């Protein structure tokens, strides 16, 4: 069964449709790049899958269920900004995730935090912006979820941090799970993707495997993207 399924999905803000009769199927076991220019509907799609928005019409199913508390238990979500409570210490944050998520692997999270030399009594507020982002990613990737929804995980980070983030994702995701990475920085993620989805103006315009594109078109996904979305 598909882990994520959209049928004729529409989401409109006022009169402008952010998603326009979108159809999509994503199977488990893949790392999928959700690629599109700014404002193409990437974040809206991810928010809908998290139940943070409700569809105007059509259907969004996660593991066959409408997003809600049951899907939240199997979806691990990295929002586009850091959203973890600033007043919490690292330890309290670990307690928080452990209390709410049965699939949270605390030992793994602690190991990664230790690797970054982040102290347990340090509060999120005391950390730099980059460290906060890493801590949030560690929390998200320490869950053995069925679906990881990562919204712009490498937006605006330096190349070393980008490598750290991508390695953390590869190293920790469950091979049975699906990972969806939304980004417009394609060259940076291309190598870690199995599959790509091009989204534009609220519609899927291409869904293919990375190697298929390279084999058939003789060009990288990045080059294809530039061609398809040429201004």
């Amino acid at each position, binding site marked *: 069964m598909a882990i994520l399924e959209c049928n004729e999905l529409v989401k409109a803000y006022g009169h402008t449709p952010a998603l326009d009769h979108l159809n999509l199927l994503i199977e488990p076991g893949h790392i999928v790049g959700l690629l599109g220019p700014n404002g193409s509907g990437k974040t809206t799609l991810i928010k809908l899958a998290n139940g943070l928005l409700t569809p105007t019409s059509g259907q969004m199913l996660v593991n066959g269920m409408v997003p809600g508390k049951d899907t939240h238990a199997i979806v691990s979500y990295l929002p586009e900004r850091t959203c973890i409570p600033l007043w919490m210490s690292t330890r309290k944050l670990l307690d928080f995730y452990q209390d709410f998520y049965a699939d949270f692997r605390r030992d793994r999270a602690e190991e990664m935090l230790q690797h970054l030399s982040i102290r347990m009594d340090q509060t999120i507020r005391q950390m730099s912006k980059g460290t906060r982002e890493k801590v949030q990613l560690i929390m998200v990737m320490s869950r053995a979820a069925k679906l990881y929804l990562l919204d712009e995980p490498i937006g605006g980070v330096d190349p070393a941090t980008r490598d750290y983030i991508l390695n953390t994702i590869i190293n920790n995701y469950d091979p049975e799970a699906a990972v969806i990475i939304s980004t417009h920085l394609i060259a940076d993620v291309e190598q870690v993707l199995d599959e790509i989805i091009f989204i534009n103006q609220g519609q899927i315009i291409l869904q293919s495997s990375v*190697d298929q594109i390279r084999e058939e078109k003789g060009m990288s996904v990045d080059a294809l993207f530039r061609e398809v979305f040429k201004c």
Partner: protein
Amino acid sequence: MKWQFSSDAPIYSQLIEQVKVGIVSGVFPPGERLPSVRDLALEAGVNPNTMQRALTELERDGLVYSQRTAGRFVTEDKDMIESAKQNLAGYQIRNFLTAMVRLGYEKEEIMALVRQENVGEELRNGDS
């Protein structure tokens, strides 16, 4: 070892080639165990599924073999490694020749240039 990818060929075929290079150059010695798929993928910075696909392909060629529990190993068949080496060399030479011909050189001129350059020695000195 260093992993580098060009943007025009499928990633899995580039992985196959680079693991082959690793085997013939002795980074992965004959009969030795290969790192796990996930570790190799991490090292190369690629998707584990793609690495898996590349290794499966190499297995089909016989350059690596897997033992159910212990993991994947490089073949002990030295002849097979030698022939893989020659294949890779042939491929490089053909590439080189194509480029030189495009520049307008004749075969004899190329040979002369290669002898003159002494590339092999330079590389060896540069590496050490």
